[in-house]
């Protein structure tokens, strides 16, 4: 059990200030073929870690001096993928959950049984055959050939099994949500909800209510109780996209959730326990935002336990032919038409293009080319023109304002269940003006009322839905 293919024993570092415990665990592990290194304190463990390079760490939670939780953070600061198993005689559930979110492989209660310990060590080292057999290929829908993506996915797969908090950086259109979804789908939470929220697309008050929920009457227009996405994602994963745009006031509230695993809806005096894995993402330089005072440092460190970086398309050009082929194939299937292909010089041109809008831009270019060209071969002129025409994700101010306004109106109508007077009050407009705005955006308040043609959970897509839809469409990065 404790040896790998080259017959080198897997090394396990045991950290405990109780010598009887160290002797017991050592005997069990050695008896199963593992090599054992021991340390009687967190400080000694950190020294041993550098010298002996173990494959897994088994540590007590409560120790004199540095405790297990601090040791875990110190280990993961240099080696975020090191499996750490924590043992404790008296940890409560919040403590265990906190440790899970900080990335421990397992949390075991003392006295521990031999079989439990050995199976957890094997699992942490990914030696158990049952896990390997049950798991589908990680990120099955992700198209890549590049080493950059292979390395990223390998790292992401290792993180999937634990509840460790993951932070994904990368330019717009690189597929950060696709990666977050792949992690969710490879995790033990896969049968529970994956909910994505674009923090930058929703005004502060609405975002607070969307995330944390609200009680009936919590604010003007709150006609009904609203559960909130943190509770809706219970047992699953909450993906917070564009976390850098989250207002400071809400950052404090989110930090509390991540510390205590409890959420208090707006207007409620009661906290509700939630069990959610948070994956966050942004295209911004969050460390810079912290320096500027736009983002809380404590939240930054809480979210950024393991950073993953999505490479831009320009950094993974070798994936372009496979991506083009995939989109051409998908479009042909969708339209029930013959698959088109790019002329060699068009392909060469696309391979060298700058792609500021990344995979999303590439997808749109293929869509545009296949729509506008009637022949089977897409010529260079069409590829050039599509790439010029295709917006790279930066819209004119008017388009951006319109989109924001429409999403805002949808948000207030959802919260007020289509009650125009209340919605207008929240928006700070009189009813006549509000009706005008609704007409401009072709929205009908009745559609948001209970029994309307659209239910309150499913009116026109907001940016939250849009983010999810775009990720569904972009099932490949």
């Amino acid at each position: 059990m404790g040896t790998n293919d080259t017959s080198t024993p897997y090394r396990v570092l045991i950290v405990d200030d109780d010598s009887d415990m160290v002797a017991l665990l050592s005997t069990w592990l050695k008896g199963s073929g593992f090599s054992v290194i021991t340390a009687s304190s967190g400080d000694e463990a950190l020294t041993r870690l550098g010298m002996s390079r173990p494959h897994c760490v088994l540590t007590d939670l409560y120790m004199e001096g540095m405790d297990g939780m601090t040791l875990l953070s110190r280990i993961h600061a240099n080696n975020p993928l090191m499996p750490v198993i924590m043992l404790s005689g008296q940890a409560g559930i919040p403590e265990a959950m906190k440790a899970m979110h900080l990335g421990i492989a397992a949390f075991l209660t003392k006295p521990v049984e031999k079989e439990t310990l050995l199976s957890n060590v094997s699992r942490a080292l990914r030696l158990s055959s049952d896990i390997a057999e049950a798991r589908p290929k990680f990120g099955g829908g992700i198209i890549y050939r590049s080493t950059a993506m292979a390395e990223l996915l390998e790292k992401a797969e290792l993180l999937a099994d634990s509840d460790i908090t993951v932070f994904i950086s990368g330019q717009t259109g690189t597929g950060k949500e696709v990666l977050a979804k792949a992690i969710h789908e490879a995790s033990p939470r896969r049968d529970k909800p994956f909910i994505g929220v674009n923090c930058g697309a929703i005004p502060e008050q609405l975002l607070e209510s969307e995330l944390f929920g609200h009680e009936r009457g919590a604010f003007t227009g709150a006609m009904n109780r609203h559960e909130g996405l943190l509770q809706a994602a219970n047992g699953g994963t909450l993906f917070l996209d564009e976390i850098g745009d989250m207002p400071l006031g809400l950052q404090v509230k989110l930090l509390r959730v991540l510390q205590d695993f409890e959420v208090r809806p707006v207007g409620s005096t009661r906290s509700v326990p939630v069990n959610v894995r948070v994956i966050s993402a942004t295209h911004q330089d969050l460390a810079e935002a912290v320096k500027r005072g736009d983002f809380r440092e404590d939240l930054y460190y809480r979210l950024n336990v393991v950073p993953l970086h999505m490479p831009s398309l320009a950094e993974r050009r070798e994936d372009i032919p496979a991506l083009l082929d995939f989109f051409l194939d998908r479009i042909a299937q969708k339209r029930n038409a013959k698959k088109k292909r790019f002329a060699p010089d068009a392909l060469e041109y696309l391979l060298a293009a700058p792609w500021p809008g990344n995979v999303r831009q590439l997808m749109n270019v293929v869509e545009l080319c296949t729509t506008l060209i009637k022949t089977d071969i897409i010529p260079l002129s069409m590829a050039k023109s599509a790439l010029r025409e295709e917006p790279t994700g930066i819209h004119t101010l008017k388009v951006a304002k319109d989109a924001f306004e429409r999403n805002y109106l949808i948000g207030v109508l959802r919260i007020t269940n289509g009650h125009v007077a209340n919605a207008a009050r929240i928006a700070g407009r009189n009813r006549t003006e509000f009706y005008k705005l609704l007409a401009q955006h072709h929205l009908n308040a009745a559609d948001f009322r209970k029994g309307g043609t659209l239910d309150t959970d499913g009116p026109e897509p907001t940016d939250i839905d849009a983010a999810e839809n775009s990720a569904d469409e972009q099932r490949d990065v």
Partner: protein
Amino acid sequence: MVQVTVDKDLEDLVPGFVANRQRDIEKVEALLAKGDFDGIRVIGHSMKGSGGGYGFQFITEVGAGLERAANGRNADLIRSALSELREYLAQVEIVYR
């Protein structure tokens, strides 16, 4: 006589483990005389964590009792737990399998 069955793999370790519990009794008595309940809590916690793993569930229970009593600064309960442990260690017969 109390018979306890212990994993044969632990045969070399058990005498030392039992001897350490004898020492724990002396340590707790000394700590109690000084009123160091925190020190007693640490020893109780340790016994609770390791006893069951070695096959001595009773030691885990005594350890938990000591930890609770130390948290409550209850000297009588601590003395009573020590007395139970002393009696147990005197009577226990270990069978290795």
